[in-house]
């Protein structure tokens, strides 16, 4: 009877210890995100009108889904922010833009950020975007600091566009911006070479 009790206690202790080990070993830290690549799908719904003065009629100004790429470059623990590279096609080439993801709140497996960036969409279209993001990731079971699945989705998002044509236009609207994880061994085949040159 006493032996059965000892075995039972040992079993419980081993289980608790096992859970503890799993719990601590598999917790990500923010710096584990460094080097993570995402394939980004973005679309816009908005309106535009001739700049004032002289102004003119407002028209629809939507943009179909486009693909871009984003990499988490590094984590600054004192600024609690990630440096990221955002790579977009400007009509003739893939161009990298340096930007920041401030960690607003959350934890390494699920955090919130506000992605703000300005870029030249084409030679005559410049755009500034403000996109709140929820970023999620999971660590590998056998390599605790290795991210094996990740994604992000926007929680709202807006753009402000300036079109520098003969008649200048201004546009505003909402953005959809979602990211899916690119496995490390698939980065070279998936990400355009122009985005990998950094």
């Amino acid at each position, binding site marked *: 009877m006493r032996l059965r009790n000892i075995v039972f206690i040992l079993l419980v202790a081993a289980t608790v210890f096992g859970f503890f080990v799993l719990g601590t070993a598999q917790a990500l830290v923010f710096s584990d995100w460094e080097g993570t690549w995402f394939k980004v799908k973005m679309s816009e719904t908005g309106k535009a009108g001739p700049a004032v003065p002289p102004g003119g009629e407002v028209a629809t100004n939507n943009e179909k889904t486009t693909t871009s790429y984003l990499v988490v470059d590094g984590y600054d623990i004192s600024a609690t922010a990630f440096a990221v590279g955002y790579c977009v096609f400007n009509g003739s080439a893939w161009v990298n833009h340096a930007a920041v993801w401030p960690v607003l709140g959350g934890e390494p497996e699920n955090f919130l950020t506000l992605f703000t960036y300005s870029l030249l969409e084409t030679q005559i279209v410049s755009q500034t975007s403000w996109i*709140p993001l929820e970023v999620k990731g999971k660590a590998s079971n056998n390599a605790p600091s290795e991210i094996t699945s990740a994604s992000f989705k926007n929680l709202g998002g807006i753009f*402000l566009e300036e079109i520098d044509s003969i008649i200048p236009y201004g546009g505003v609207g909402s*953005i959809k911006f979602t990211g899916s994880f690119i496995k490390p061994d698939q980065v070279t085949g998936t990400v355009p070479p122009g985005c990998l040159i950094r």
Partner: protein
Amino acid sequence: MRMKKICFVFFIAITLIGFYSIGTVEALQFQDWSGTWFKVKVSEKGKAGPVVSVLTPNGGEVVTNNEKTFDSYLKIQLFDIAGDPPFFLVGYCSFNGSVWATQRDLPMQVVGGEPTRFLALFNFERIQSQNITEEYWVPLEVKGKEASNTVGEINSASFKNLGGIFLEEMGTPVVTQRGVGSVTFTGSLVKGTAEDIEKNVPEGCRLTAPGQAAGE
């Protein structure tokens, strides 16, 4: 026969002049929006999480952070066409948990369009309560119609957001949580005379500086 022709030409000329007059006299100007009041319905949908810091390097769990529809008030104070880009100065009034508080002279950038229908970007900060501050970025489409018998008087107007986001900070003086998400922000004209507006707008919202009385 000649008399008929003269009458016909005269009739056409009068009609054209009439159309021209109506077209020019009734065209709304951006300046005509000054003094316009809107009742604004605002709601938020987002998430929040504990702030990550040197003391709490791994933060904490993200949770839902929505806010049900609440009322606020917005008054267009003036239009500055010389601005680059041109902008309206507006007053925004919301309930901060204990009183109605007005923020004045907030710039609302005019992005494009015409006086009867234009696009704007409204970026401002507000104190939601003693412990919570928020920053909004709200693209707006604003529409208005001029009264047919009073030149420059807007008798119907509204705005709706084309997207919209918020960034929220909770805790003072040390921020302990932050939230982000989307905002809906729609406005309907507060109609009527100065007296009507005084009745319909909370007392704490009425701008009282010279030239900025409620019904102006």
